[in-house]
């Protein structure tokens, strides 16, 4: 936490710098998605573009967190609270994913992959 006036004065330059970096990386992320010669992977959008886009976004988000939200020097309690929140967030994602792995079979599925597919259903009449 920037406590003294000098520190706050000094930090302001840092904030501007971070702001500029964020601007630049916003342009980068758009460029990666739109400029043909910056197109990674296949032509057009694909998983590589998604990964790159998310890496840039995560980098930007961590800058915001670390500098603007002062997470680079916070008290322990804040980290505990935040980490718990993140863990619970991940749990929510995993739980959603889990529901897609539901092994219950629907109808009279011939293939038996666990997912309902009308085309596979045997007509018993």
């Amino acid at each position, binding site marked *: 936490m*920037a406590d003294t*006036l000098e520190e*706050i*004065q000094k*930090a*302001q330059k840092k*904030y*501007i710098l*971070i*702001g500029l970096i*964020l*601007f630049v990386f*916003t342009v980068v*992320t*758009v460029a990666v*998605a*739109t400029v043909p010669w910056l197109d990674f992977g*296949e*032509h*057009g*959008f694909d998983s590589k*573009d*998604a990964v790159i*886009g*998310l890496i*840039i*976004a995560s980098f*930007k*988000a961590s800058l*915001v*967190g670390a500098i*603007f*939200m002062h997470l680079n020097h916070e*008290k322990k*309690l*804040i980290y505990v*609270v*935040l980490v*718990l*929140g*993140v863990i*619970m*967030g*991940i749990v*929510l*994602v995993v739980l*959603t*994913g889990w529901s*897609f792995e539901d092994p219950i079979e629907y109808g009279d599925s011939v293939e038996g992959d666990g997912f309902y597919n009308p085309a596979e259903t045997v007509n018993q009449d």
Partner: protein
Amino acid sequence: MEIPYTVTARKDTGLFNSKVGIWLFLASEVMLFGGLFSGYVFLRIYADYPWPERALPIVPGLINTFVLIGSSVTVVFAWAALKMREWRRFQIFMGITIACAGMFMVLKGIEYKAKWEHQAVRMDDFAIIEGHAHYGAVMENGEVDHFHTKLEAKKAGGGKPFKTNKILFRPATIDFSVVRAHEPWIAEMLEQAGKRKSKLVTSGDVFFYGHIEDYSGTESDPLTGKDRAKQEAKIVKEFGKAEENLARKFGKNSLYIPAGTPLDYGLIKKARKAYIAGRAHNAETRTAILKENWRRVKEILPEKEYWEQAPVAKIDAATQLDEQFDDQGNCVSGSKVVSLVSTLSFRMDPPQPLVIKRSWIKRPVKAKDGKAELRDDTTLSAGDDQDQGAGLLASPVALSVDAIDFRWMAQKAEEAGKEPMEVIEQSWIFSKDNKHHGDYEQIWKVHKKRIGELEQELADKYGKDAEGKPKRVPTETDRYRVTWQDLVHYARAKKDSLMPGDAGFDELRPKFWDGFAGPNHKDEEIHKLHAFPELEVPHHKVSMQSMFTPKWNTYYAIYFTLTGLHGLHVIGGAIVLGYFLFFSKGLYRRNPEWLANRVEIGGLFWHFVDLVWIFLFPILYLM
């Protein structure tokens, strides 16, 4: 009361209390948005239709990202200014922050508005057409005409213009469910009928039995005095003198509606009351009959167990008994269950077209059925007048097209093991049934040529792999989707097509991939180019139509959920920060450090809102 630790830190945590509070809140927000982001991921992974990649205009999203990042910087500056006790500086930076929030919401509003202005149609062959719905108007002679704009439709003098995504039905009769009929829809139908100088009147006499409290004789007839005389007079008119006594037993809330009574919701409400009263009577009567039956069964079969008595004492046996009346017309024995009338039938005189929203419809309307069922159990039917033009009118979705999209059709074709291009070229858009098919064939020819060029270009540039296949190929979007931006290139060149590499291609090519930075729609010349040939998708080919709203597909559902919730956060944050700016001078004078802490907390929330957008922008706009 003094709130502890708002200015100074607690010794054990090393933090002032509100900071712990905001972080607890932000942690819960992480979970909230985390859950929604995972919703996005799973909707996308398991989508059974081509996900609309990069479907949103990038530039407004990009500007909004700049705006939010900028406001994140200014909000820390506002906080720093307070720390240094510079009120004026604080005001400036906080003012900029709030202005940024306003700008964000304005841009978001523009973006949302466009979603409601664009019409999308999914045809029964999975072709998707995007554009702007034309306006229709019902002319004075009852004919329906279509116009490009609302203004033109209004000028044509055909009453209230309507978007051509609706259904037109000319009913001979309309049956309303007395229980479920929806008042606003009735009002709408009445208004339309009134404008077209048509009347809705009951097609026959209807009698509703009410609640008959005691069926044993006329002495306890609930109708008394003037009401009774009135009711009797009506019933005499209806049933004749001979039935007079019978009529008097119809009970409280009973209702007689003669033929030719004009429709209004009050009438339906009265009928509903009578219906419900009659139903209550029947329920009570059935219970009484059943009780009586049980009593008798127990008398007749006293030695039997109750499960053996039960089948004998069934309710139907009692209700099926014929009513017996004495010469006074009093019911002396038999069924006391009255017959219920649950629908009120109205005649439209003369039959005029009614404009029905597709969202009112219960199940698909087919011309040959001669009827349309609404979700409130109202049935519009052509009846015997089908020969005279009653029934479903041609209700095409007529549009100025922005784009045609065959990605889903191609996907379906591949699933069925067919060649996508063949399936597309045999589809309705290119068939003789489409009166603009020539134009579309032309567009498709040009488009195919362009895709061929693109294929070649990619193969030349990136080479081929070991198996001889090109390393890079055009995407599904390139191949199966043609937008007005693509057309701009062709049309401006004043020749068949303009290909990448041709002179002038680059200046015409929109700066951004999906073309938002392309020609402005207000530019007259561009406006003409913007328009695809029109399309009139016949009613029976429309399998779904919608604006670009959550109804259209799961992409727009999650888009509106995520951005809507984020927008609410922006508004909430701006309100809190605005409070600090406009109503905190007093606190600043009394205890500036406290205000600085408050601004820090508000700022933390604001940064979080920025952080969420940093993820929303790429996943919704760029992926």
